[in-house]
Structure formats: C-alpha cells, structure tokens
C-alpha cells in the first residue's frame, strides 16, 4: 500500500500487517540537522498518537507520535551512528521503527500523498 501521513508529519508505509514509520521531508526541513534519535524499544505496545520517539536537532528535542497502534517489531539501530539519515533520506534510510498494526482501520484517518502535499502547502 502507499505511504500515508499524519498531521504531525509522520509517515507510515504498510507491508502486510507491519507499518514502517518515519518523518516527512517537510518535517526534517523544519527540524534542521538531526543529531540524535531516541527510538522505541522492540516489544513496546504503542497507541496511535502516543509519543514514541524523540528527534533531537541541534536546536531542540521534538516528540514523534505514532500514526498507528500496535507493537514495535524493529527499531532503526543505524540511526544511532548516522542520525543525519533523517535529513538526507527521511522516507528511506531515515526510518524510525516498525510496528505490527493492532488496528489497521486507523490508517483510514491518515492523509494520502495528495492530501498531505496540500496540507503542507497550506502551512506555508
């Protein structure tokens, strides 16, 4: 399925019953240089909208909210040594964690690419 976005600028890309979560191009631009990402523990049960990760830029710490409920199955360990991937490749190598979806119908409330692009445009 295609990528979907939250109003908090997280994206989720689902394969089977597992979603991969990261932050959008717009979000990384707003944050500036990322220097540390605090990713959630594998096995953690998370709720949609819950603060599950923290991105530290030089300037500030920002909470990352899960766009879906479920259980964390994997966290991107590579970000520990290469947090800059969040800036360089936010939709790819800069992913944060994977979640086994508890309630796939939640994704219906998220924005598709066109809706998100329009949302970002409305912010500027």
């Amino acid at each position, binding site marked *: 399925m295609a990528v979907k976005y939250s109003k908090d600028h997280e994206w989720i890309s689902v394969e089977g019953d597992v979603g991969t979560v990261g932050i959008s191009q717009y979000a990384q631009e707003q944050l*500036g*240089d990322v*220097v*540390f990402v*605090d990713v959630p523990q594998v096995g953690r049960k998370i709720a949609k909208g819950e603060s599950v990760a*923290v991105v*530290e*830029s*030089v*300037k*500030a*710490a920002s909470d990352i909210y899960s766009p879906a409920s479920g259980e964390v199955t994997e966290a991107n360990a590579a970000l*520990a040594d290469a947090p800059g991937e969040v*800036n360089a490749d936010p939709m790819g190598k800069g992913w944060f964690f994977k979640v086994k979806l508890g309630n796939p119908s939640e994704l219906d409330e998220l924005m598709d690419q066109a809706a998100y692009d329009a949302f970002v445009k409305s912010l500027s």
Partner: protein
Amino acid sequence: MSDPGPLKHTPLHALHKELGARLVPFAGYEMPVQYPTGILAEHAQARTAAGLFDVSHMGQVRLTAKPGQNAAKALETLVPGDITGLQPGQQRYTQFTNESGGILDDLMVTSTGDHLLLVVNAACKDADLAHIQKHLSATCEIEPMFSRGLMALQGPQASQALARLVPSVATMKFMTGAFVTIDGAQCYVTRSGYTGGDGYEISTPADKAEAIARLLLAQPEVKPIGLGARDSLRLEAGLCLYGHDIDTTTTPIEAVLLWSIGKERRTQGGFPGASVIQKQIAEGAPRKRVGLLPEGKAIAREGSEIAIGGKVIGKVTSGGFAPTLGRAIAMGYVDKANSANGTKVELLVRGKPVPAEIVPMPFVKHAYYRG
C-alpha cells in the same frame, strides 16, 4: 506576555531573506536562526574558517561624562567590573547587578577615551536603558544607538578576511577596540565575540550595515551564520546566555564570573548587591555553575534535573549538541557540596537518568588572539 507588537527588523533583514535564512522571532526581532546550509555546517564554518553573524538586535549605548563628571566611575555604581581601570581602546565584560546580587544583564564595555560604549542583550536593552537613565542621568549623557548595525565576524580566518579591508585590525588584541573606516563609513571594531574563537564585533552606521555585510560576505573565508550556531558555539565555549545560565536569581559568584570582578572592587564594593557578592566571595556561594558531560547520545536540555543517587542537586540551564565534539554537552547549577570536577551525577532526560560527569569548561578550548 503582553502583545509584543510587530517584529522589528535589523538593517540586515532584507539580506537575510535574500540569503534564504529561516527567520524566527527572537527578542522582539525577526532574526535568522539558520541559512540553507544548516546549523552543523554553519558551526563548522565558524570553527574552521569565518562566519558573519547579525547581532544588530543587541543594544548599543554610548555614555559620555557630563562636565566635571567621570563616566567610568558613574558606571561602576551599577556594575562590579573594573571600569575606571579601562585604558582607551580596552574592553571588559561585566554585569548589571541588583540589590540582592542577582544579574540584571551582562554586557561588554569599551572605553574610547572620550566615551564608554556598552553592548547589552537584545531582550534586556529597553530595561537596561531605563536602568541606566534612572541612575546615571545626573552624571552622563546617555545615547541609545539601537538602530546601528552590529555584526560579529568570528573564526580562525576572521582576521585575514577583515584585514583585507582594514589592515590595522590584524594586530588588534583580544578585548580591545578601535575606530576604523570600512567602505567609507566610520565603524567601531572590537576584537571579541561570543564563540570562544578569534574574531571581531563591528558596529556600523545603520545605513551602511548591509553594504559592509555584503563586502564581508564577498571574502572567500566568510559565510553567514544564524542564531542556532551562535548558541551551539557559545555553549561549547562555556559562555553564559542571559535569561538561561544567568538571571536575576543568580549572582556573578554562583555563575563563576568572579574573574570579571575587579580586584579592588571585590574589597571596596560600591555596586548593587555588593554585600551579598562580597559575602559569597569570602564564604563561597551556595551553588555553582558547572560543565556537564553526559554519557551516550541523549541531550539534556535546559530544565533537566541534575541528581546524585536520585536526589536532585541542581538543574541544567543550557544543554545541547556540541558539533565540534560530536557529542552532547550541558551546563547547569549544582549545590556547592557536589560541584567538584569529576563528580558523577545523573541528568534526568524525559524522566530517564543519563549518567554524566561534572567537568571543567570550556568544552572547546578558547582561541583568543592575545598578540
């Protein structure tokens, strides 16, 4: 906060926009927090080459003695620094103190011989001006020069870049100032800054600020730097940020700024809060500003508690990522009893204890030019 009204612009505002800066509200001004290259690149630029910072939002004030008066002596009634000892062309760092020894603002004072030039913090400048006017109007002419340009040129190549335009600045020593002509305009240059590195601050007429900034940016060593890197640079240098590391509740002694208090003034007093500060000089302050080096990668920001074995002993007042070191650093206040270098503490980051150690500052060695 009451309605702050529209954001003010410095004389370089249009240039910031042209350079693609991200502009944010800061102390009532719309200021560049970063340019398109980003804070890490800007930080490295200022540490390895030269960077140009717009600091025109800061308050410049000129004091001139009224007939029969002494401006330095008058200013000493408001600050603990040795101002009467300033030779023409010398600059000093000091603080406006209050009756309880707290810090109203910190500032730079330069003597030109005929005048004292003060540079105060942007967020405090209106209050500072009112404070100066209240206490010094009888003895000094007080001229706020809030519309002038002020830019900082900082970094190991700042000297070669500025000397290309003004050869005489090459031999200026740290904490000295001089009138110079740049692009036909009379400017006042001091060899000082807020990065811990070599560099200059250049006060310009408002209507010449942009032309001079463009001239400096045309030098191959120089790139524009925003407030984001200004903060990470000063934190690496262990320098206080007013309103965070020092304020009306901290004394210069607690803030470990005793070095900035004149030797004679320590005994003679004569500044607001002198009795409190003199008592702390004699007996020690109840708490102390220290450097903190957290283990691992988590960043303890301002407000994080500092604890030993779960017992809170203080609070972080500035914390961030040090690009030069590639790791997190912080400063904060701890109880005097637990303030020794090497003390192991925990910093509470989002409720989780992060092991850290109290360390000497600066985190990055100062590189001032002392001739």
